């Protein structure tokens, strides 16, 4: 673009320029574009990359092949924004009240996931007479989904309670590797159980929160209204590409999972390919305090009529 918005520093500032350089050197762009164009739903979608310093770099403009309305793939890099020592200081000075609210919100989200799990399982088991016997698969999925979401919900309750009665226990939990790994495992397992979009959102918010060190409210506020509305549906967590067939199975078993994805959505296959093209330089899972992981959220944005 020839108009560099003079005077307000919004043109190709040095950091923006450097960000583009860095991204182009880190990511195999042709492979990324090929992965996107391989999906008929999003052929020619624009690609926008937002890095940690909120430099917005348009890697490719939208071309009206798949639809007339613009569609964009947003790759958003989330990273711990501040130095570890500073972060530690900030955590120490942070008033615990806001953390209590955070734990409570988290608990509500996890327990909503548990309700979803039980709903799916209950409808599955009541429909069973008409769809013939409970096979081993149903049983296994039911145990995984109910077990993982219940553990998460109780974990949330315990953390909220501890935040009231013994906050240092939560700090200790966060510092333990086994606990972090268990949490991530439970996230994946409960996602496997319930294919509803709500849990995807929970996961996204968690990752964003964990990796940016921001509070939940800040994470949610950082997105515009339109983005938020789309994000709940469109942003896909990319931790477990194996999820798809199992989710499909569950949907079939349950018989009547509402298909709420009416707009285009990134297919997991496409996400996996995008992930591959993002290369080994970038880890795709988030974990609260391990510090050196970088998360990229992949989302599909589509302009829609109000």
């Amino acid at each position, binding site marked *: 673009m020839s108009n560099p918005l003079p005077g307000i520093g919004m043109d190709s500032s040095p950091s923006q320029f450097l960000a583009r350089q860095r991204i182009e050197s880190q990511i195999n762009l042709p492979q990324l574009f090929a992965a996107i164009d391989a999906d008929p739903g999003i052929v020619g979608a624009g690609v926008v990359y937002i890095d940690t310093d909120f430099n917005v770099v348009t890697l490719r403009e939208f071309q009206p092949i798949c639809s007339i309305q613009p569609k964009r793939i947003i790759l958003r890099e989330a990273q711990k924004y501040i130095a570890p020592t500073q972060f530690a200081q900030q955590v120490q000075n942070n008033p615990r009240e806001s953390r209590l609210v955070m734990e409570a919100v988290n608990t509500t989200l996890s327990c909503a996931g548990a*309700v979803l799990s039980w709903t799916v399982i209950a409808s599955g088991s009541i429909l069973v007479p008409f769809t013939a016997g409970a096979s081993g698969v149903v049983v296994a999925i039911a145990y995984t989904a109910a077990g993982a979401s219940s553990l998460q919900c109780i974990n949330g309750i*315990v953390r909220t309670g501890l935040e009231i009665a013994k906050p240092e226990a939560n700090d200790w939990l966060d510092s333990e590797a086994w606990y972090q790994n268990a949490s991530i495992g439970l996230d994946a397992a409960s996602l496997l159980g319930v294919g509803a979009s709500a849990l995807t959102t929970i996961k996204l918010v968690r990752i964003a929160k964990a990796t940016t060190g921001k509070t939940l409210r800040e994470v949610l506020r950082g997105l515009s209204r339109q983005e938020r509305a789309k994000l709940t549906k469109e942003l896909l967590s990319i931790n477990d590409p194996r999820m798809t067939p199992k989710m499909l199975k569950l949907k079939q078993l349950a018989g009547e999972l509402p298909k709420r994805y009416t707009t285009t959505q990134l297919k997991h296959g496409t996400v996996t390919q995008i992930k591959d093209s993002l290369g080994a330089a970038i880890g795709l899972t988030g974990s609260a305090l391990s510090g050196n992981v970088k998360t990229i959220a992949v989302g599909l944005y589509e302009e829609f009529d109000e």
Partner: protein
Amino acid sequence: MSEELTLRGFFREHFLGFIAGIFAAYFSLGLSVVLAFVTYFRHLPLADSGLYILLTGAVLTLLIVHGNLMVLWGRPQWVWLLIGVFVACLLFVLPTIVYDPHRGLYGLALLFPLLGLLFLNSRGQRDMRRKLVDIRQQRETLRRALAQRRT
């Protein structure tokens, strides 16, 4: 023989009671774990006791899940497992009063097991369990019929 249980009927009449029972169990267990941290094991370093408290909590969680799944799959005798968990939580929490724990937490930790027992004993839940047994019988008849056709 009660009337047939449809999906809609289940969600209209029984689901609330069912999920309330589950959540009463969640809260009983969660609050018991919290109280374990701040009472009985208060003086032990977290590194020694924390993992074991949480592991016990996780095992009990899975027991709750197992019990509820079994009830859902038409085996009402497993409700005794749930009753056992509630009673265990109650008995575990009661004596912690000597440690003078947070009043709110203690009150809730006593309230939820009692609520849970109330839910399990409610007419709605009993009715639901009876209907779920019917469903299991249908399922088994169906499976037997399918097996016969195959042979």
